[in-house]
């Protein structure tokens, strides 16, 4: 896994974005951007090349699953690895996300180790 890749965090809750950013930094990522909702995420994706998306399930306006579906319907964006962040006990959501084509999912609360493990799997290491 190339730690220089550009990661996009999508979460409406600023604290959660910060936590995710910290964890990604712990893993060794340096190139991190974030967005507070689906629309901003889409703009970010159009603006520059993103290599990985970590997106919260639970967001107003455009929930994570809708963003995922939008991306999957877009020829240029559909291949960007998309990792869904969900809460525990939301099993239905996880299944829905998997059906819609996520590369992986992580369940809150998570540690840098679990995230690193999941991401390594996504990038085939």
């Amino acid at each position, binding site marked *: 896994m190339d730690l220089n890749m550009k990661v996009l965090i999508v979460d*409406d*809750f*600023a*604290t*959660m974005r*910060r*936590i995710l950013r*910290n964890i990604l930094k712990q893993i060794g990522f340096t190139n991190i951007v974030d967005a*507070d*909702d689906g629309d901003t995420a889409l703009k970010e994706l159009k603006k520059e090349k993103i290599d990985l998306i970590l997106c919260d399930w*639970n*967001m*107003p*306006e455009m929930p994570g699953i809708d963003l995922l579906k939008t991306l999957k319907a877009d020829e240029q964006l559909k291949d960007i690895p998309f990792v869904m962040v969900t*809460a525990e006990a939301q*099993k239905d959501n*996880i*299944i829905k996300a*998997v*059906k*819609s*084509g*996520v*590369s*992986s*999912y992580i369940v*809150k*609360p998570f540690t840098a180790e679990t995230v690193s493990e999941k991401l390594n*799997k*996504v990038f085939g290491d």
Partner: protein
Amino acid sequence: MSEMLEKISKNIESIALEVVMLDVQDIPALGKIVNCLGVLEEDSKEIDQPAFSELIQAIKSYIEKIILGEAADVTPLEEGVDSLQTILRHVSNQEEYGGDISQILDRLKFKKAEPDEAQRVQAVGTKEKEEDIQSPDEDLSEEDRAITLDFVMESLENLEAIEVSLIDLEEDSSDIDSLNTIFRTFHTIKGVSSFLNLQRINTLAHHAENLLDKARGGEIVLEGATVDIVFESMDALKKMIMGARQGIENRTSLDIGLDVAPLVNRIEELVSRADLIGDKPLGEILVQGGAVTPDDLAKGLERQKTEPGKKIGQILVEEKSAEPKAVASALREQKKFSSRQIDLQVKVDTKKLDNLVDMTGELVIAMSMLRQSQVILTAQDQKLERNLGQLAQITSGLQTTAMSMRMVPIKSTFQKMVRLIRDLSKNAGKQVQLEMTGEDTEIDRNVVDELYEPLVHMIRNSVDHGIEPPEERKKAGKNRKGKIHLRAYHQGGHIIVEIADDGRGLNKDRIIEKAKAGGMITEESEFTDSEIYNLIFQPGFSTAEKVTDVSGRGVGMDVVKKAMEKLRGRVEINTRPGEGTTFVISLPLTLAIIEGMLVRVGAERYIIPVFSVLESFRPTKEQYSTVEGKGEMLLSRGRLIPMVRLDRTFKVKGDAADPWESLVVIVEHEGRQMGLLLDELLGKEEVVIKSMGAAMQNINGIAGGAIMGDGRVGLILDMAGIWAIVQNN
């Protein structure tokens, strides 16, 4: 038929291939298989083979378990797909399939034991004990502290915002958007607190989220006791979150030790009761409440048969059977409070902001001192002139920006009142509706904080005493539901906040009676109506129980007044018997700057706050008189008002001894007027208020100092103090 069989067979083949190659951690591959199985499930309905369909179902749920990490063994899958192929072969050959799939079904249906709810509640109790032994969180890193503080701020903001949603929801339980907003907030708090090791916050948020999830699924209707419990959970969360903030600030434990177990148990009781009742009553309740027609409900139930996993509430909303209008209005509401507003902000310590404002104030002063210095004034250099002009422009721009940074919309303060009114009216057995206008009006951050308590006080008065009970209102020909209107707007450099109720109004006679008894007035004819009503702001009225009972006002209103005066604002009361009462608060835009009338008395210069100035004129001999026992008086617009000689008050030497050779500025304070005698009006100027320092803080009649353009100090007059001096003489 054969076409369909072909399709099914191809589909199974590709599934089989995927299964053989399957890595249980390959999420995309698992997703593909689930989707294929979904198609297969649909298609299998065509061939009417119960065993086949059952097997597909079992395989699908097994794959889902693998996705969730609850199963890792692929063998049952391989066997299951194998059996599928066998059955299909039989069907293709039009033979009866006689095999036994029960064994493989058992293997696929392996169920991971889940701890039941009772045990989980128990677990809460034991966890708490462990925490009690936990040492204060000294080992938190700086980054963790910062994140926790972020969490505190963000959660509190969100919790405040959802209070309104919850009240909307209480009024209209079909308001799905409000419900989702509330759910999301609890959900997020739960999620983030789990990272920050805020165990109790996490536990409570988790259980409240469960309850709300049931409400979303339509298993529970949020009303009465259920809403109350959500409110309670919100309050408890706020308390614990604020506790966490204190813990961070004082470097002590983040856990305030609030026992959440009783609340959690009550929530769980509601949840489990909902589990028992199941779906059916919800439909009935919705029909009873008029939210859905019986036909729609029947349709929804019909659809539910085809989609067994779905809850009826969900279906009804999806079918738009449940009030699209309510959904639309709620959508608008949600936009207003959307969490987007809180983002893209930097949080800055208010102390730093105050410092910045202070420094820019100094800069403005330094700037004007520079401009007025002799060297500059006599310099003939155009370039210097131009540069100075630019510097002045930048300085004033900087000042405006610095000031605006402290401004926040009054909305959050207003929103807190929504909850207050709900609780108060419930307690008092009254019906009160709250209306708000101008919530976006911006106001100094420091003022907002100081405004909260007085607002609460006035609203409490309006609800407790102003608004009549429903029966009484009906008799008076009013709507049973009382109305309180919160209004905020700008007016002439001030922010006006109004609290208007449509209640019974003040009882003038009782106030006069009470005031006479308290020795505040002797003869009512001396007073205008407005002056009489404003008597309730006098300290003596604060314990006036009798007046409170009869006329309905007067409890602690002096506290309100004092708070407003501290903010250099004013509070007035307008009332019409039987029609209602309006409190009008007028506040300065900012506390750091005052718009002042610069006046000269002898060689000294003073600043009179413009908001208290009514007019100024040179009195004629006829207007001036002395009244026995009251001293010097002036006749202004048909009224006799006391005259204050500023030179004598502050013991400086004035120019002229006779009023008709000087100037008078009429000022108003607490609804009463007085005339200040002075020598010259120098103009209007915005000055930055400077504290006089601890040693000179309590000089009667002086509110503070300001550095003037020429570097000299001007004293800002304090009307309350001067009034007191007049009274004492």
